């Protein structure tokens, strides 16, 4: 079996630019840019709320804001990466495992991409509300139980 056979008879094993890689190259920058945009706008706009909530303690509000932003980035990028794999419902067996057929046409690629990016945008919307709930539920160690007061009581 020479190289010619390998390329012509089993085209699935060839290393060519196919629609899958093009779809990934569009999907990844789009979702990462969306993530960064939403996270930055949240970071800008939740600061005033947190300052109000923590009784005008600026540094505490800034650090809490950064913590919430980190959580948002992790969850959103995690969803975007986990949902990236093309899943068009057509399978073939490869090395004893069922693997999705690669995308075969530009039409299929556009359909798949719009489905992926739309579902990711929906997830981002849900995450935004999750962010609001975290902001409402967050608190800090209560003042009367701080170690400062413990030192005072035990002394």
């Amino acid at each position, binding site marked *: 079996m020479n190289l010619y056979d390998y390329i012509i008879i089993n085209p699935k094993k060839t290393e060519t630019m196919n629609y899958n890689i093009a779809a990934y190259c569009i999907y990844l920058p789009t979702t990462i840019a969306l993530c960064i945009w939403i996270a930055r706008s949240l970071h800008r706009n939740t600061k005033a709320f947190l300052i109000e909530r923590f009784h005008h303690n600026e540094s*505490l509000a800034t650090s809490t804001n950064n913590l919430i932003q980190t959580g948002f980035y992790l969850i959103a990028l995690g969803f975007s990466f986990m949902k990236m794999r093309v899943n068009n419902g057509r399978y073939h067996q490869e090395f004893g495992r069922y*693997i999705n057929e690669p995308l075969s046409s530009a039409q299929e690629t556009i359909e798949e991409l719009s489905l992926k990016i739309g579902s990711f945008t929906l997830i981002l919307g849900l995450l935004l509300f999750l962010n609001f709930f975290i902001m409402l539920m967050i608190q800090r160690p209560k003042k009367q139980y701080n170690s400062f007061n413990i030192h005072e009581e035990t002394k």
Partner: protein
Amino acid sequence: MYQILAYSIYLSLSLLTVLVVGRNLHRNGKEFLFGECPDEALSNSTNNLLYIGYCLVNTGFAFYFLNTSGTIGTFARLLEFIATSEGIIFLSLGALHILNVLLAPRIISFFLAKKLRQPD
């Protein structure tokens, strides 16, 4: 060839994210958890202990959940492998982080309140 490339990219990326996120949390968590503690040395050392625990748990997670099922034959498969594994790592890190942000102040309040009631 692709297999080794995929594993090395996955491991280096996930370790990098764990360390970068950990440093971010280490910097911001000190003010969040121990902002009102006047004992600087105590709050610093507790913060460092939390950071070490975080790093151990998450690097262990990243190494342990290396997905060894399936053979990676093409570049598209390589991208899919890295994205899916990294997605799982990111999601679990994020879930742990949000739970921590919500629960850690309450846990600290709870234990310190208990200690206040029965001082040793």
